[in-house]
């Protein structure tokens, strides 16, 4: 018979309850736009609050236009972002220019607000290498298609920053499905072991294509996976821009003070399909669920919050919408004007110094292209 002490150790229910208690959802702004956690309120000026709202509205329009341009065949690969504005933009808003973003494929908005020209984001969507030629001084890399790869790479970028003594962080994003990957675990574990300044964000929008999050893991929260790496984990209301901002800002502080990485789970939702490549969410999502999450819309609650404070009105919203539409039109024009890619372009981008096989093939294609 096991002793009483041993039995206590094996109280499985208690073990899980104790862990889960440590991962309460941080919320600052409720669905009505009311402050429910004054103590956690981040320090943001009126102008910053307005700028954050502008970016969120702009990005919602960008998503609507991108879907429509994709349907017209004027964009290629596109992963809708509507619903995730707080999660994506409030987290980026907490960064500094020197911070490095390693995005997943849905995380184009963060890159744009970190300095990637819109026309290049469109070229990325279309499949043109010029879309990925990130301007010097913009610390981002193009969206990662291999789910999890950005996590192990972020650990390396963060380790590099630590070795350089830089006061900066590497931030990376994945989805709920991505937490099942080996690279997800290896990334947070390496960053933990090296005490590297990394922020790992899980945008839990409840579905990985058609697979609901409860099919990914028996874990009650995804943030508690941080425990396996021995690093802090935080759950935030991912529809609440202030809570997301606060969590990322705090994680950044810890990171640049040499205290290591943080894992942040944002509870969010995508209103659209997984991608525009034929996914049909009505096959796996109920309209009840969609409606429930539409009530949580980050734009709605933040708008109410700002309007109450007299910081936002219809005119400002419309100006933002018009500006977004104009920028998008202009950016598509710039993208359209980009010369078509040639095989010699692609060959030239392979190595610093062309190896013999490519030198030979370069000449062959140069000849073809001159005809």
């Amino acid at each position, binding site marked *: 018979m096991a002793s009483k002490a041993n039995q206590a150790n094996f109280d499985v229910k208690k073990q899980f309850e104790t862990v889960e208690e440590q991962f309460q959802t941080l919320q600052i702004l409720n669905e009505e736009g009311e402050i429910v956690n004054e103590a956690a309120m981040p320090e943001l000026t009126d102008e910053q609050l307005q700028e954050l709202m502008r970016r969120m509205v702009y990005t919602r329009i960008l998503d609507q236009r991108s879907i429509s341009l994709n349907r017209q065949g004027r964009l290629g690969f596109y992963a809708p972002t509507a619903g995730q504005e707080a999660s994506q933009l409030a987290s980026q808003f907490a960064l500094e220019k020197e911070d*490095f973003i390693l995005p997943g494929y849905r995380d184009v908005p963060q890159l744009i607000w970190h300095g990637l020209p819109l026309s290049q984001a469109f070229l990325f969507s279309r499949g043109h*290498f*010029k879309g*990925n*030629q*990130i301007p010097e001084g913009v610390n981002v*890399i*193009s969206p990662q298609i*291999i789910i999890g*790869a950005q*996590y*192990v*790479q*972020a*650990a*390396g*970028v*963060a*380790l*590099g*920053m630590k*070795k*350089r003594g830089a006061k900066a962080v*590497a931030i990376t994003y994945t989805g709920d499905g991505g937490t099942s990957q*080996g*690279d997800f675990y*290896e*990334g947070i*574990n*390496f960053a933990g*072991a090296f005490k590297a300044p990394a922020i790992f964000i899980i945008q839990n929008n409840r579905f990985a294509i058609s697979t609901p999050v409860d099919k990914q893991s028996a874990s009650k929260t995804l943030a508690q996976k941080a425990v396996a790496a021995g690093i802090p984990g935080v759950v935030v209301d991912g529809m609440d821009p202030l809570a997301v901002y606060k969590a990322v800002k705090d994680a950044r502080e810890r990171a640049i003070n040499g205290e290591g990485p943080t894992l942040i789970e944002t509870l969010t939702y995508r209103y659209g399909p997984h991608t525009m490549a034929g996914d049909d969410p009505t096959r796996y999502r109920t309209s009840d669920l969609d409606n429930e999450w539409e009530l949580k819309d980050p734009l709605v609650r933040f708008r109410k919050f700002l309007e109450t404070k007299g910081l936002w009105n219809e005119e400002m919203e419309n100006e933002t919408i018009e500006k977004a539409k104009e920028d998008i039109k202009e950016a598509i024009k710039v993208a359209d004007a980009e010369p078509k890619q040639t095989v010699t372009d*692609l060959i030239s*981008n*392979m*190595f*610093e110094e062309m*190896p*013999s*096989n*490519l030198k030979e093939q370069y000449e062959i294609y140069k000849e073809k292209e001159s005809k």
Partner: protein
Amino acid sequence: MAQMTMIQAITDALRTELKNDENVLVFGEDVGKNGGVFRATENLQKEFGEDRVFDTPLAESGIGGIAIGLGLQGFRPVPEIQFFGFLFEVMDSVAGQMSRMRYRSGGRYHSPITIRSPFGGGVHTPEMHADSLEGLMAQTPGLKVVIPSSPYDAKGLLISSIRDNDPVIFLEHMKLYRSFREDVPEEEYTIPLGVAAVKREGKDLSIITYGAMVQESIKAAEELEKEGHSVEVIDLRTISPLDIDTIIASVEKTGRAIVVQEAQKQAGIAANVVAEINDRAILSLDAPVLRVTAADTVFAFSQAEPVWLPNYKDVMETAKKVLNF
């Protein structure tokens, strides 16, 4: 000049580059305090500090990922994969990521990474240690694949690999680590990547080979000479890209060729060499180009290595088939 084994020449190259370039970082499983499972990084941590030479958690994929990330921060990573059979754990970082970095970013970023890794049979290792997986790497655009067969080549090629601004897979044959010594200059020198070496000149037959099969081919050539055949042995040294000029010049001279590899027939790079010769020198050929390879099975259980691994006798037998065609 100093008499060095291949493993000493490798350590010497790493020391040279750690000294030359403060961005060079050496890391992997047990490469730090322990000096590596084969002592390839012996004393380097003591000499250059834990910031430059460090151990990692036991996770190959993570090692590949941090190499890429460190590369993005301007470092020159020289990670080690303890045995190349463990490549599969890090295949995405190598073949899905670092090999494509320059291309996918249109030249904005690159991966100046050299992955060192031991491989090769004949030393009775356990499963998944000795497999010849260089063929997988040679099929991946964006990578260079280097396989030295001697201490002198190992040092010059490793220095070139580390200085290369694109990813290089540097494969070290375990059987060659301490099998012989040769004169290696103590000062730094480089050997260009993508350039083969004629290890033995001959007129009647070209043997094109790499890795541990270089020694077997030289031994076979010496035996064949006793029987009156003049055999040229070409050590590819870099298997991707191939040194086409050296291969074709030799075949045009001899009119007969065989390609010798330790990997299985369906693996390695021998088929590629044959195809290049067929494309470029078929009118010089007096006989088909034949291959010496292992059988198309999983790598042998260690006790079966002697009957499974190709050796100089197999080289002689195939050489004679071609000479007597």
